[in-house]
């Protein structure tokens, strides 16, 4: 066990996961998503009934009603779930992008950085992500209609999304293992998540916009009704 710890904290491993593996994961993320996007477009063209009905106006109307909390009927009917879902997704996207430590790395590598949020806030957002994920987990185990459609893969993708946050939180607070090891695990977890996005149902981050656009167009432009 100690050997594994030593190996993971060795400079060679650190260099590898900080260097080439970052490139690999970002390129896989971008390349994979581009591939998914293009193959979706070509399959949608094959479907014949998608493109003739797409309308920009109704696509945007539909997307807007579903990315704003409580703007659609179902979000209003389930206030608890709405708050949890939105908190989870907003914190999950915002925390890594605006984290001081990540931006310091960006600055160091490319001399470029985004706005940053104070570390305490980032810490709270991280806890929010972890708590929401925990609720999602409990939901999968307890709520009958969710349990009925839950497979092993659902737990895996939830773990993929939340592990970078758990390891990041532990590293920041120097808990569980020593800092070097936690950071290594954190980076690897983040990279695995990026690589996994295009190839798992995590790519709902990409598909969301298009499934909504199509449904919004069908309902708005063709069927003259609302889908929210």
């Amino acid at each position, binding site marked *: 066990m100690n050997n594994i710890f030593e190996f993971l904290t060795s400079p060679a491993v650190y260099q590898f996961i900080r260097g080439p593996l970052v490139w690999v994961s970002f390129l896989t993320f971008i390349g994979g998503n581009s591939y998914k996007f293009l193959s979706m477009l070509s399959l949608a063209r094959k*479907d014949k009934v998608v493109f003739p009905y797409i309308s920009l106006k109704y696509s945007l109307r539909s997307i807007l009603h579903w990315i704003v909390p409580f703007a659609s009927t179902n979000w209003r009917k389930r206030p608890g779930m709405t708050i949890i879902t939105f908190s989870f997704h907003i914190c999950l996207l915002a925390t890594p992008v605006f984290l001081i430590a990540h931006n310091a790395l960006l600055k160091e590598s490319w001399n470029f950085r985004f706005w940053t949020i104070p570390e305490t806030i980032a810490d709270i957002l991280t806890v929010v992500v972890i708590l929401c994920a925990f609720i999602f987990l409990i939901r999968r185990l307890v709520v009958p*209609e*969710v349990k*009925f*459609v839950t497979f092993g893969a659902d737990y895996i993708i939830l773990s993929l999304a939340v592990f970078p946050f758990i390891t990041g939180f532990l590293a920041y607070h120097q808990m569980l293992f020593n800092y070097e090891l936690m950071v290594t695990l954190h980076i690897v977890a983040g990279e695995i998540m990026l690589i996994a996005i295009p190839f798992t149902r995590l790519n709902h981050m990409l598909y969301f916009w298009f499934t909504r656009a*199509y449904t919004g167009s069908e309902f708005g432009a063709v069927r003259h009704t609302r*889908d929210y």
Partner: protein
Amino acid sequence: MDETAKKLTPEQIEGVIRRVLEKESAGRLKTYVETCIHCGLCSEACHYYLAYKRDPSYAPVAKVRQTLWDMIRRKYHVDAESVKMYARIAYAECNICKRCSMYCPFGIDMAYLMTVVRRICGLLGVVPQYLQDQGNSHMYTYSQAWVAQDDWVDTVLWLEDELRMDIRNGRIPFDKEGAEVMYSPHSLEAKFKTNLLANIAKIMNVADVDWTMPSCDGWDSTNQAMHIGDYETMGMVERMHFEAAMRLKVKKIMTSECGHSFRAAVYDGSRWLGWREPPITYLQPTQFFYELIRDGKLRIVRKIEGPVTVQDPCSIVRNRGMGEMLRYIVRATCEEFRDVTPRLEHNYCCTAGSGVINYGPPWKFIRMDGGRIKIRQLQATGAKIVIAPCHSCHKTIEELIHYYHADMHVMFISDLLVQTMEIPEALRVDGEQQQK
């Protein structure tokens, strides 16, 4: 279904599933399957789920899990028993009402996914017997209810005779070239619901509409082949229907007060034939009657007494936004209108939609149990009359009323209009006498 399932071979099943999922389906199927995050937020959209006391197996996503995901996970190697289960779910436990796609955060069209399952079962012949029989009727007689062309012509001729008892010199003009509207009835209107065809004839004569009906095949607007998933027959039926209208050079087609025939012509049928929208303006009576009243072509001189509510048929309200037109007509013709909750596009399906009404006695109780939500919703309004401009809604709500001993009855819009419209002096048979 049991008998056909016995004859299926594993190769047949795999072949059909492969053909439908890999050749006939493309972007939507793949994207939906890869996007669904299994969150269960669609559950409460489904009236079956609510009626069956929140049984998780009736949630929309659960129906996809038990059918499409099952086929995909088992790499299409499924047995005949599973196909029977898929058929039960897709044909009887889903009305293709699309309410769930309004509740899915991704807008996944689960109704479409269920039509894919119906297509697979339809190609394998594992179809509720009564529905298959009506599909066969479309193939043999070009009508849903085994009404051949000679029966059709004969029916219309005696209906025209009877019309003249109510309307002076009333006409049901066959094959009038260049007419404004071609009325295309439901098959049953030529069989045992002829009173509805008579209603239409009265309204057309009173509103002085330039209308016609084809005496040749293509007169029937129904399309049960669509429900089976037999798209080849569905396409043939719609093509025949459009061609009848083209031959007569009419400007518009109007279907009967029916939901599925409108859906078949405007969506499924047209798209299968390669049309983005129907090649000829296609009307449903709700829109047509609304325009007649709005434009003053039909004068309403009486009002129906007592509280009245409406049923929003999925095919024309959630799928064509005619909810407000329906309410306009009801307000114009009834003294007291009480709206339903949820209303308009959020309304619950009557549990008879997409062919479920046609499966006959063997499948009646799934409608009666599933319709619990519908009847409670209607009872909550306290109305005594339900206006349902759709044959399926009409029939099943009437059955629900008997089954649940509710104190109400169902009417079509045309029933409302013939009771409330003014018949001009010139068209009255016995003058004032007839008005009573």
